[in-house]
């Protein structure tokens, strides 16, 4: 955005500014006031860096304490017995559950969110789209614990029918077989996470689609494109990197979500082949559920698993950034 062209009503600069003073001012740090102010603001920035470094250092330190005592293999052990001597725990189950639930959530949420964003920007009547966008904006602010409560008390009972149906028709795949237990399994978790991240992805995608320059859409229309073809030719390509970063934002939320998973999932420390059988766990959920009874050793182990979660979210964010950077050449920014 070009700031300099935004306003014309600023008072014109005085014809002969004191050039020497203006220069020294723009470098800051000549008067006491400037020095203090620069110090405070730069200090805040540095403090932020210190906090980030401290997070990495202290998590790593406590995690290393735990892992050094771990009798099992931290990456592959299928149990979480931190109160034994020697303790034996590993994150394989958590990594599996976290990734599976997030994949389900993304697979459901991203297409629907993109469709809703298109609906709001290109399909809905204008009178409808404004208020709906506003409401979706507000829904993005609903605390995750409320989604968790709703998921556990409303969504879970309503999943019975879907589970039975999936079992009847797709049970033979193994992934969708169901033994009739309470539907507090990975599929429900994934669906709930999808519902949670839907408003976030929708909001960001909508903003992106709204910024598609009208002239690109008109170019497509003038070639004789239908509305869908306009979307395919002009809107989606232009918005692709924005949608990717929106999705990554949602993925970050899904990976680290604690309460919505903790309330809905009926955890067990193993991997279920079927998405419909209760069991498994995620990093965040495991921390929340095991924390209450954990000794200091147990807490260190949980910190170690949290560190892994942290690294995974960092990788996801990095990947998103890389994808967006690579698409720069074709972005509409220079058009």
């Amino acid at each position: 955005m070009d700031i300099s062209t935004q306003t014309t009503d600023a008072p014109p600069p005085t014809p002969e500014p004191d050039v020497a003073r203006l220069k020294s001012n723009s470098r800051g740090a000549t008067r006491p006031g400037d020095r203090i102010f620069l110090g405070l603001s730069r200090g805040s920035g540095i403090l932020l860096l210190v906090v980030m470094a401290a997070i990495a250092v202290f998590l790593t330190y406590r995690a290393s304490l735990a892992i050094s005592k771990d009798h099992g293999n931290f990456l592959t052990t299928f149990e979480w017995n931190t109160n034994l001597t020697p303790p034996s725990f590993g994150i394989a189950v958590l990594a599996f559950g976290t990734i599976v639930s997030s994949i389900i959530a993304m697979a459901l949420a991203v297409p629907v969110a993109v469709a809703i964003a298109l609906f709001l920007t290109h399909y809905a009547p204008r009178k409808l789209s404004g208020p709906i966008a506003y409401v979706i904006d507000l829904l993005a602010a609903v605390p995750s614990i409320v989604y968790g409560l709703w998921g556990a008390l409303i969504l879970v009972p309503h999943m019975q029918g879907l589970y039975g149906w999936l079992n009847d028709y797709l049970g033979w795949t193994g992934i969708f077989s169901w033994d009739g237990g309470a539907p507090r399994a990975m599929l429900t978790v994934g669906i709930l996470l999808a519902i949670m991240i839907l408003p976030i992805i929708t909001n960001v995608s909508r903003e992106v689609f709204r910024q598609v320059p009208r002239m690109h859409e008109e170019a497509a229309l003038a070639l004789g494109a239908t509305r869908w073809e306009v979307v395919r030719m002009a809107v989606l390509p232009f918005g692709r990197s924005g949608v990717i970063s929106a999705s990554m934002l949602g993925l970050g939320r899904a990976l680290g979500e604690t309460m919505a998973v903790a309330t809905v999932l009926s955890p067990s420390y193993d991997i279920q082949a079927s998405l419909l059988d209760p069991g498994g766990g995620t990093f965040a959920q495991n921390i929340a559920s095991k924390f209450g009874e954990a000794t200091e050793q147990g807490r260190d182990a949980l910190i170690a698993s949290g560190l892994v979660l942290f690294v995974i979210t960092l990788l996801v964010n990095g990947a998103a950034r890389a994808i967006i950077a690579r698409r720069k050449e074709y972005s509409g920014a220079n058009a």
Partner: protein
Amino acid sequence: MAKRIDVSGLTAYYGSHKAIEDISMTVEPRSVTAFIGPSGCGKSTFLRTLNRMHEVTPGGRVEGKVLLDDEDLYGTGVDPVSVRREVGMVFQRPNPFPTMSIFENVAAGLRLNGSYKKSELSDIVEKSLKGANLWNEVKDRLNKPGSGLSGGQQQRLCIARAIAVEPKVLLMDEPCSALDPISTLAIEDLIGELKERFTIVIVTHNMQQAARVSDRTAFFNLSAVGQPGRLIEIDDTERIFSNPSVQATEDYISGRFG
């Protein structure tokens, strides 16, 4: 293949605001017709009613008839999408698709309709780029993004994209207003060549340009700000610029207002 346009009693609105009122004219095939007039007189709006782009603007609607070789663009059952395939358009600012390569930009309209073999597609793209006098400049970088070209080249790319689908009419909405004089000259030369194949309508702010490129010129004006624009007169370009029949036209072209 160029077609004649016959407009009668055309009025266009933005919501409740009447932008142009009761316009009738005939545009001959294989000729260049220029629309001139002061800002806000509705000449661009009128241009956009000729391929039903006006109704894309929220609140935009049209009354009256636009016949394309005896067929009313606004008749019942007429599909605006088909209209825009027959009547191509080039916009004020060059607008190649930023996410597509030069090749893909030219092929964009073709891909919408049916499938072409790779070789057919290449032939049409080459022919269109040659038709737009751009081929020699881009033949080595067809796979580079179109947004990397200069403004004048981008505009010729947009013209190539528009003529690739073989429209009957080509509308140009101030195609040179964002370009430097040399690029403008290139486009004007191109217009002279394209009129052998298409019916061309061009909106321009630049009266010298209208005089240079057009066969006939239409002068639009509005009686006051907020009033709808009207067609004052349309005649052979030579006559308009030498001896117009209406005083307002003479005032405008001699620079007395506007």
